[in-house]
């Protein structure tokens, strides 16, 4: 019904929307002026000059998309992650909202390779196996752009998703399959202005070692008790592997909350967040009974934000050994809010330095043992990163 009203009142809306876009710009510009931790020059920029340059462009924009593009360009010039405009955003939208085949993939040696297949997913039912290379989707060849791993992986995953209930014809190098698109696995979780997001938690035993993997640091009331239960059941066990490959982060406080199950000494810190007014330490409260065994964390270039805060802090404290490849280097605490024109606005409110002194933004977490997955290994059903972590735990 509101959409119908929009059609009927299109002319009036154009003027109203122009005002809303300008109000959105003012909110974006003012928010950064008032909250950015680099008070005098956010991102090294003359912020007043940015307003003088971009406000007229937003004012002259012929559409919200054009106004949004101008605002995005201004934010990109900050040169920092966690700043962005989410077009047509509504807190009531379901996150992603689109269907998935249930495959995870990475670009390995210039090939788009299946690295995991969700249990019970359409891809698993269709017989897709790890190690297969995706060549084309619905007849369109998969070209690989030059992007950092996080964005590249998201772009490739977007190609193998679509509306729930639809079907994709995917040409793998081993087979051509029609695969249906289903809702992503997990349970919908809500947190403030974030779109409802599906959260899943997976645990299993690999011999005497506990292995956990979860897709995002959200859903405090389900994820933290699940982690607690995994650790309580891990007695006796040789060690713990936390697989954060593909985990984009989430609620920053969860890094401290989950570390509390692994660190038994009070007042230990994962790192420090620097806002404009204060330096806030990410302090860990031990949550007895604390798991005392060896901990391995698996990372890759798609592990971001809270995943980096968690892994980097535990590494600096000597509490975890990191396996895999360098993380995404995108670790700024941020807020997502709504703008007068209906768009979402994500903005970072602080810098962050890990306990060992590393600025995770731009540097990321370097693994203690760099291990690369290979297509040959995946085809053989192996995960070289996981195997290296298991080997380290066994040797201890």
């Amino acid at each position: 019904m509101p959409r119908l009203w929009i059609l009927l009142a299109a002319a009036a809306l154009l003027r109203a929307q122009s005002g809303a876009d300008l109000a959105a710009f003012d909110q974006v510009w003012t928010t950064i002026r008032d909250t950015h931790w680099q008070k005098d020059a956010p991102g090294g920029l003359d912020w007043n000059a940015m307003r003088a340059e971009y406000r007229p462009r937003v004012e002259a924009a012929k559409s919200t998309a054009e106004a949004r593009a101008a605002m995005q360009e201004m934010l990109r010039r900050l040169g920092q992650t966690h700043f962005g405009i989410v077009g047509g955003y509504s807190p009531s939208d379901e996150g992603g909202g689109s269907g998935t085949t249930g495959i995870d993939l990475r670009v390995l040696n210039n090939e788009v390779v299946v690295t995991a297949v969700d249990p019970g997913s359409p891809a698993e039912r269709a017989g897709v196996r790890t190690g297969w290379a995706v060549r084309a989707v619905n007849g369109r060849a998969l070209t690989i752009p030059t992007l950092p791993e996080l964005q590249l992986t998201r772009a490739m995953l977007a190609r193998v998703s679509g509306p729930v209930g639809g079907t994709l014809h995917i040409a793998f190098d081993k087979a051509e399959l029609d695969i249906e698109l289903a809702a992503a696995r997990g349970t919908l979780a809500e947190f403030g202005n974030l779109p409802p997001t599906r959260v899943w938690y997976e645990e299993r035993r690999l011999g005497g070692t506990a292995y956990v993997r979860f897709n995002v640091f959200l859903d405090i009331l389900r994820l933290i008790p699940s982690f607690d239960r995994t650790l309580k059941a891990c007695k006796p066990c040789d060690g713990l592997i936390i697989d954060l490959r593909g985990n984009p982060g989430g609620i920053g406080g969860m890094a401290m909350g989950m570390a509390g199950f692994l660190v038994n000494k009070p007042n230990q810190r994962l790192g420090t967040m620097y806002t404009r007014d204060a330096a806030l330490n990410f302090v860990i409260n031990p949550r007895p009974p604390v798991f005392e065994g060896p901990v391995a964390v698996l990372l890759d270039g798609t592990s971001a934000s809270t995943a980096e805060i968690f892994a980097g802090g535990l590494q600096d404290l000597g509490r975890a050994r990191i396996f895999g490849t360098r993380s995404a280097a995108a670790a700024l605490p941020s807020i997502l809010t709504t703008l007068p024109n209906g768009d979402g606005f994500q903005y970072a409110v602080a810098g962050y330095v890990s306990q060992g002194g590393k600025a995770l933004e731009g540097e990321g977490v370097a693994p203690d043992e760099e291990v690369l997955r290979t297509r040959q290994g995946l085809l053989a059903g192996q995960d070289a990163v996981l195997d290296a972590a298991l080997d380290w735990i066994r040797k201890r």
Partner: protein
Amino acid sequence: MNRRTLLTVLCAATWASAADLPSAESLLDRFVEATGGKQAYAGHQTEVARGTVEMAAMGIKGTLVRYAAEPDHYLVVMEIPGIGRVLSGVKDGVAWELTDLMGARVKSGVERAEALREARFNSYAVWRDLYLKVETTGEEAVDGEDCYKVVMTPAEGSAETVYLSKATGLGVKLTLTASTQMGDLPAEMRFGDYKRFGGVLMPTRLTERSAGQEIVFVLESVEVNAAIPATQFDLPPEVTAARN
């Protein structure tokens, strides 16, 4: 004129005018009177306040219940969707916190001292017990309301500055540096929508700004002298475990 000279001149100017300001003691006593007077405060032995807590910028809103009883028993229970329980309390000198996110801990040092001050029942009426030194340092308008600035220095912790309305004697703003587990946090609180409960005027809207965030607490009801079971203030088992 260099910066030091300018500072000296400004300090001198402040000093000269400070001599004409009302004493901090008289302003704080006036505040107690304006909010109901000592006798009204003395009529309160317990309070149960219910309301909401909201971080509008993040789209987060939850509920809060604050239990307080003489002499210094205190418990705040917040339930926030997506975050879960946030509990903090004081009993018999033990100040603690328990959250679904971070687990349990016992406060110490300056943070504990601040929690004990906050837990002191009818703390406004007994400000002389809580602060070693109070001083009127100037005048300032807060949102167009002319106020006196009173700096209150406790035995432990940093000084707090309260802005008291010249017209009504009521508190309008408080600035302080809060000691938290994560570090010292400059904060500003605005008080508004005063309402009377059991003969005492209380601000029912408190807007706190710190670390670039704004949190609004709204009290919807305050039940005075409600029966609160003594066990209500007991330390939760997780806190007892953390204490041990």
